[in-house]
């Protein structure tokens, strides 16, 4: 074993270490990082400590991290990674380049970090294959951090350190609390070794020394509530399930993140998959389950692949399987990929999908905790909830309960997208105001724009106007204001967006995704959509508004599951706060944001027009004609408002009025 060419921390240090899948050792995990405990050997100890340094900072004391989760890859991280390797080779610098997850700073993807133990560890944003060579040359040859987005510490040993801000001093970072996302963008998500070095599976090791009831008590004291949206106390769900008299029980990780605009679960599972898995194993132990299922959304294949790899590695090192870490507890997990249906996020629908049926929800009660998968007691927990469980078990409930409000403890990840300067996924204590999140962390409106609302909680959530931005984000405050926390997607709507169009968009989403089982949702979403379509096309009446409210209230009261029950939220909340926009569409036949096609007209601005005639050529109905002075003109009476001329014009001379 000692002679193995490539020794990792997971392997035995010498012949004394006897841990294997068939002979599991209770102290296996903590022994890796702080051991050995079973035998005295300075040599083995040093060997492990050396390896830990190597894992954290590479074998040459420096490692280059490239953010390569879905968002980074979409921005071109893979080519950056290759270019970085080429650049280092041509400079003759021997440094490892590794793919890591996402820091949550999506606005500056792709990013790289040159990480070392006592160096400044600069982070660079908007890196391209073309400029990565320069960045590396500046750092390694000139000893300068010029051009970095931020550095982690000032050392005084590098040039231009004072030109670059400290990461901890930046608004986008300073106001966050990196609790559950601490490893995201820092470790290689495909390496179980890196997870262990950063304290991974210590929570599981600790949980297995406690009785299951004590684990549930720990989560109760922490005050953790479900991060999937509804905010049900996690410990209570577990306790109910634990008390069911059944031999077989299941625990399901809900990784079917379907809310458009929410990607914190993808980010967590892609950047730190073992944390989610660890939480799932702990949940299985607490309720007495022997089988776990991770149900992953079809559209997020990288998330599924990374979770599969994590499961495989955990199994290989005896963290899944029989008698985990020498305990009586046996547990295994399979990863299942959804075939794509938004309603799968609803727990009873998800169970139907896992059982191989159409994903249609059923009446609750009985809740899955008493009658779930294959009619056995089942706990369904969200990805972020499980990641919190693992973190709480390592650091103790006291640390977690330090953050948050009286009734909602801890931190929550939010994805801020839409009309802001800095889009990304940010982790803040629950109870942070919307204003702090949107203005301080996400940087406020884009150049020349004005933010008018945020849409929280996806198609189930509501729009809140700017004047309510001082509202703390917690389960109860948002509910009262007509929105929900949901999974934490926060879409910022600025003055280029029309509220009626947004409401219609969400309704088109729920209309398409309604499973069709119950009438309030199947017929209700269609009725809502038809009324909204009439309004955006200038054919609405004031009675429509009343009808929208009536149907919406009816659906809230009578739909079978949360999809239908929350589908009217975007409409009801925007009617409550933006009635004037609806009325402008109806009474003045005008769209204030100039979004609704039927209500805008197009005209050519002569000052910008270069008389190229592309608009006339592209117009599908041929209503753009040349005037005697060579300019072009749109015949408004015959225009079908398709917008082709706006797209075609190379100068942006076609304007909406």
């Amino acid at each position, binding site marked *: 074993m000692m002679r193995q060419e490539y020794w990792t921390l997971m392997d035995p240090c010498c012949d004394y270490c006897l841990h294997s899948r068939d002979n599991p050792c209770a102290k296996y995990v903590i022994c890796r990082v702080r051991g050995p405990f079973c035998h005295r050997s300075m040599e083995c100890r040093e060997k492990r400590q050396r390896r830990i340094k190597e894992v954290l900072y590479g074998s040459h004391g420096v490692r280059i991290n490239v953010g390569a989760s*879905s*968002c980074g*890859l*979409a*921005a071109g991280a893979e080519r950056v990674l290759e270019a970085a390797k080429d650049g280092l080779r041509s400079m003759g610098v021997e440094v490892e380049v590794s793919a890591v997850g996402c820091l949550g700073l*999506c*606005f500056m*993807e792709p990013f790289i970090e040159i990480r070392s133990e006592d160096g400044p560890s600069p982070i660079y944003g908007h890196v391209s294959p073309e400029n990565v060579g320069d960045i590396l040359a500046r750092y390694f040859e000139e000893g300068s951090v010029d051009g970095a987005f931020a550095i982690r510490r000032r050392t005084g040993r590098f040039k231009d350190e004072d030109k670059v801000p400290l990461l901890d001093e930046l608004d986008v970072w300073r106001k966050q609390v990196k609790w559950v996302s601490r490893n995201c963008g820092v470790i290689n998500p495909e390496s179980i070794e890196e997870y262990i070095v950063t304290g991974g599976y210590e929570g599981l090791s600790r949980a297995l020394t406690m009785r299951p009831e004590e684990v549930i008590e720990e989560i109760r004291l922490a005050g953790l509530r479900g991060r999937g949206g509804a905010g049900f106390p996690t410990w209570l769900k577990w306790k109910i399930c634990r008390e069911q008299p059944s031999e077989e029980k299941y625990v399901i990780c809900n990784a079917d*993140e*379907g*809310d*458009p*605009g*929410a*990607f914190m679960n*993808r*980010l967590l599972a892609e950047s730190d998959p073992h944390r989610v898995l660890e939480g799932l194993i702990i949940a299985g132990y607490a309720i007495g389950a022997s*089988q776990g*299922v991770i149900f992953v959304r*079809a*559209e*997020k294949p990288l998330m599924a692949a990374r979770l599969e790899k994590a499961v495989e590695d955990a199994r290989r090192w005896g963290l899944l399987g029989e008698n985990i870490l020498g305990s009586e507890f046996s547990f295994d997990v*399979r990863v*299942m*990929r*959804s*075939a*794509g*249906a*938004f309603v799968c996020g609803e727990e009873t629908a998800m169970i139907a*999908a*896992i*059982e*191989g*049926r*159409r*994903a249609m929800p059923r009446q609750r009660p009985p809740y899955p905790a008493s009658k779930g998968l*294959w009619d056995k007691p089942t706990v369904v927990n969200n990805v972020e909830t499980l990641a919190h469980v693992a973190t709480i078990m390592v650091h103790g409930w006291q640390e977690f309960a330090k953050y948050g409000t009286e009734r909602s403890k801890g931190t929550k990840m939010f*994805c801020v*997208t*839409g*009309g802001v300067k800095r*889009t*990304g996924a940010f982790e803040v204590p629950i109870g942070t105001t919307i204003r702090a999140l949107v203005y301080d962390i996400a940087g406020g409106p884009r150049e020349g724009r004005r933010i008018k609302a945020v*849409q929280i909680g*996806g198609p189930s959530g509501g729009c809140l106007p700017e004047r309510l931005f001082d509202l703390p984000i917690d389960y109860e405050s948002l509910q009262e204001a007509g929105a929900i926390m949901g999974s934490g*997607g926060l*879409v910022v*709507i600025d003055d280029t*967006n029309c509220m009626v169009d*947004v409401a219609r*968009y*969400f309704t088109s*989403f729920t209309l398409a995704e309604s*499973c069709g089982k119950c009438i309030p949702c199947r017929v209700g979403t269609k009725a809502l959509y038809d009324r909204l379509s009439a309004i955006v096309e200038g054919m609405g009446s004031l009675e429509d508004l009343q009808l929208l409210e009536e149907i919406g209230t009816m659906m809230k009261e009578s739909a079978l599951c949360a999809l239908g029950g929350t589908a009217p939220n975007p409409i009801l909340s925007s009617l409550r706060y933006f009635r004037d926009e609806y009325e402008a569409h109806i009474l003045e036949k005008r769209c204030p944001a100039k979004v609704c096609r039927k209500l805008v007209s197009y005209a050519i601005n002569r000052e910008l027009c270069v008389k190229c005639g592309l608009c006339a050529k592209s117009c*599908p109905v041929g209503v753009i004609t040349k005037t005697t002075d060579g300019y072009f003109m749109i015949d408004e009476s015959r225009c079908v408002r*398709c*917008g*082709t001329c706006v*797209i075609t014009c190379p100068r942006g001379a076609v304007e909406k009025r």
Partner: protein
Amino acid sequence: MSGKICSGNLIEFLQRIQEEYGFLPRDSLIKLSRDTRSPLSRIFGVATFYHQFRLEPPGKVTIAVCMGTACHLRGNAENYEFLRRFLGIGPGRSTSDDGLFSLEKARCFGCCSLAPVVKIGDMLIGKATPRELQRAISRVRESILREEAARGAGGGKT
């Protein structure tokens, strides 16, 4: 998971068939129904319920336009309409006449910060504009035609 292989793994079976053929051929579904002893109606019900499953062969390259919130607000509805016109895909159809491209609407890819996002094959295009899409599609079309030509020529020689 437990012994209920015939019904419990239905979605995974369908996924595997689709991986093999690119869609769910009718004959395979009939065979699956026989092998698993579950009614064809049930299998058909599941196959039509989920977005992922296709009952018709797709084009060589699938173009998926994200219809998530952020992408909607940043103009992907216009991109979609543009692609329909540019590829010449009529109403009720999803594949272009040359059989090269199929166009579909997708739910959020989770890359909202790069909105609007369009996926051509495996390539994600962030901050997509009609102009950029036009260029990307032309590139993809050329490379497919080149490949086909090369294969055709190679086949002719041997």
